[in-house]
């Protein structure tokens, strides 16, 4: 799950999660599970086609004090671990 280069203009991720086809709240759960494996300051990139996950990534980052970097041009999502 690690080391794949990001596509488009996404920030270079340390971890890439493929959650395509998984309904809410699975993508947010997978993001939470992956976070401990990401060094502080590094980026997780999530692939998700769930319409709720798109809204819930920024809400989760707010609740968990992480940095939501936004949706990338290729439709993936980037989150930076802050704590």
């Amino acid at each position, binding site marked *: 799950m690690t080391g794949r280069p990001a596509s488009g203009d996404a920030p270079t991720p340390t971890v890439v999660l493929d959650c395509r086809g998984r*309904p*809410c709240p699975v993508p947010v*759960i997978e993001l*939470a599970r992956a976070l401990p494996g990401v060094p502080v300051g590094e980026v997780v990139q999530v692939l998700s086609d769930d*319409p*709720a996950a798109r809204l*819930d990534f920024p*809400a*989760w980052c707010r*609740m968990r004090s992480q940095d939501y970097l936004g949706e990338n041009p290729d439709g993936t999502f980037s989150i930076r671990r802050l704590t």
Partner: protein
Amino acid sequence: MSGYLDAAAALPLSPAARNALLAAVEDGWADPATLYGQGRRARLLLEGAREAVAGVVGARPDEVSFAPSGTQAAHLGVLGALAGRAVTGSHVVHSTIEHSCVLAAVAHAGVEATPVGVDRLGRVDEAAFAAALRRDTALACLISASHEVGTLQPVEAVAARCAEAGVPLLVDAAQTVGRMPVPSGWSALTASAHKWGGPPGVGLLAVRTGTRWRSPLPADEREGGRVPGAPGLPQILSAAVGLQAAAAEAEAEDRRLRPLVDRLRERIAAVVADVEVVGDPGRRLPHLMTFSCLYVDGESLVRALDGAGFAVSSGSSCSASTLEPSHVLAAMGVLTHGNVRLSLHRGTTEAEVERFLSVLPRLVEDLRRDAGVVGL
């Protein structure tokens, strides 16, 4: 009706509305448009109902029409106002948290629309709303209070700005009519009887005298030319009596339900881990509150609560049947999964609220344990 906490969807008939409905089936069956005795009697009853409803919402009786549902009242309100203002333009301004029936009517009209966003508490900004009004704006729409999170909207302030701009304002007041005073300044007002304790099948459309409005349907002489077809007189009579009863007890119910909702808001935030209680804590409906539980599938939580004897609704979309989550929660930027809306009513007791608070933490805990997300 123990455990029923979905008043914002539909209420059981209030005793007054129920009695009126039974009496009206006997006495109110004739066509009020006819000229013989039974028809005159029906017409008298219908006009009495119109006067009663007009009195509660602060309208003139001839401004009030009855529609077959709140949804159709909103459709007719939006489409008729656009038809009436076609010479001015076709642009619409609306909040991002309107009920889906208002958004559907705007989409159906195929006109340009400017949605005005809300803050994290679900409240629209009056200045931002005013700034969206243009020279060619034909209609503005603002819900009186969010049906999903309960936040009251600055209707009177927005109405004043619309009046300055010469733009009519349609207010969807489905969640406040019969519970709170109707704000002044509306050009069109819509509501729904089964949300104030009347029967289903009755919507309210009031259009202020002087507001340009043209029927989007083939019009007849019924309901001031605004709603074609014979009205459902027995349900309308029941709705009118139900509204008078609801308005008469609204202040007392507000005093009783508001602290129960405060208790739900405070205790749920305290006893359930990783929960977000959403909506404005102060400027809100007296009877409604909403929360979202992190990592929980909203539909599973609704089913678990049903199993524990509680009927609630959810704005989540953790299922194949509804792919898009609540546009209201999305507009507020709050968590959309694990969402539950509770709406209380005249039959809701303190003991029921306490029982809800006693079972909720365990249900959420069980769902999280089953999903393997404890401690995330």
